[in-house]
């Protein structure tokens, strides 16, 4: 049911039965390293290209998700997944082998929450009983997609965020499932917000207004206060984007500074060299939520969270043509039932 301006209330509160996260070497070494299911120290994952490696990270996360629940591919009704590459090839080539009906999504770094929203809506409507939501990214394939191939040996500007290598996957099921697990209560799909920022190396600043718009709209629509949530978790705003978001909210009269957390800031040790701006990419929210925050919810250290993934919907071509960066943020409220 639609409530307020753009939020949907999920009456049948779909459950997130299980999650799974696979990550690369830098993420494994980070402060959240212990929380990820699969840690691969090889960025190639034994494959010949980075694109194939990214597909394999996704395959590993999904296979592990099914393994944890003792399920087979044909038990799954649908899968919603996406990545950052042209034509979403990381997801496409991964899911080619799975024999599961597939919806390919592109929401840039907001893809994981977009997948969660659509999967939970499918479950809520009764269109399926087991739906997977997933998203992946890979530092090396993203560099080729958005900047220069690594083979080029280009210098990386120090302000740029580092794309997370890995994948996160979650299985959504109807509320009738016995197990006590976190449920999705409200979802707020975002609008595109463009404040005219053109700097590709400063995506946090471009995306913060979109996050602000979606968070404020969500709080208004649901008539909740920021304190209702134990954490409002953004995907990859990074250090600068986080400051902008908190300032925007403060100017609006809403203080989220006490509950706000950012996956991009938490996944790497920001004191290390070349890591100062934090992580980004679809896998930033996907792996940190699937690996870390889901466990925090399950173990009741957090009980009510709002996940807000932001995405920058530009391409190197649009930037080359002088266009600014359109941004989007999708939000989903995930809560433990009392």
């Amino acid at each position, binding site marked *: 049911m639609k409530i307020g301006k753009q939020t949907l209330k999920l009456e049948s509160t779909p459950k997130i039965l299980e999650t799974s996260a696979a990550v690369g070497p830098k993420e494994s070494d980070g402060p959240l390293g212990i929380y990820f299911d699969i840690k691969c120290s090889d960025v190639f994952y034994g494959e010949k290209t980075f694109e194939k490696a990214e597909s394999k990270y996704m395959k590993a996360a999904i296979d592990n998700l099914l393994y944890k629940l003792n399920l087979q591919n044909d038990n799954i009704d649908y899968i919603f997944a996406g990545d950052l590459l042209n034509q979403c090839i990381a997801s496409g080539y991964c899911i080619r082998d799975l024999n599961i009906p597939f919806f390919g999504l592109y929401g840039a770094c907001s893809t994981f929450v977009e997948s969660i929203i659509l999967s939970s809506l499918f479950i809520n409507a009764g269109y399926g009983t087991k739906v997977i939501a997933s998203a992946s990214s890979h530092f*090396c394939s993203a560099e080729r997609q958005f900047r*220069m191939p*690594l*083979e080029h040996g*280009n210098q990386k500007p120090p302000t740029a965020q580092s794309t997370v290598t890995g994948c996160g996957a979650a299985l959504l099921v109807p509320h009738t499932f016995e197990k006590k697990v976190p449920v999705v209560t409200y979802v707020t799909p975002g609008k595109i917000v463009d404040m005219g920022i053109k700097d590709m*190396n400063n995506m946090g600043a471009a995306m913060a207004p979109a996050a602000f718009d979606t968070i404020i709209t969500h709080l208004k629509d649901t008539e909740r206060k920021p304190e209702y949530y134990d954490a409002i978790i953004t995907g990859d705003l990074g250090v600068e984007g986080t400051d902008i978001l908190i300032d925007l909210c403060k100017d609006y009269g809403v203080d989220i500074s006490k509950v706000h957390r950012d996956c991009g800031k938490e996944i790497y040790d920001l004191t290390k060299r070349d890591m100062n701006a934090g992580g980004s990419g679809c896998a930033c929210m996907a792996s940190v939520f699937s690996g870390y925050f889901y466990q925090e919810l399950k173990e009741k250290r957090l009980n009510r969270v709002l996940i807000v993934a932001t995405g920058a919907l530009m391409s190197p071509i649009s930037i080359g043509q002088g266009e600014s960066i359109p941004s989007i943020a999708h939000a989903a409220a995930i809560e433990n039932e009392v």
Partner: protein
Amino acid sequence: MIIEYLKVFITGGIICSIGQILIDKTKLTPARILVIFVTLGVIFTAIGVYKPLVDYGKAGATVPISGFGYALANGVIEEVKDKGFIGIFTGGVKATSAGIAAAIAFGYLAALFAKPKIK
């Protein structure tokens, strides 16, 4: 000889530091900085500023990418003296042909034996 090495080191170091400062302090992309360096190399050679730098810093001035601009401009100047107008088009590539061909050949060889790594 040590003094000569020092001169080369300082000249090359200063040129590369300028590049690093541009990467750190401006919004220029690395590709743009590269093009700016080549173009400046050409312009400085044309107005006679780069030659003294090469005389002083030797490889310190010719090895960085601005040195490629220096080679391009010198090639054009020489070829125009020799062959006239057509030299504007042929001189630059002729003078830098060894470098370009070597880059392709060694690039290919490196691709055969090496794999890119994460930064």
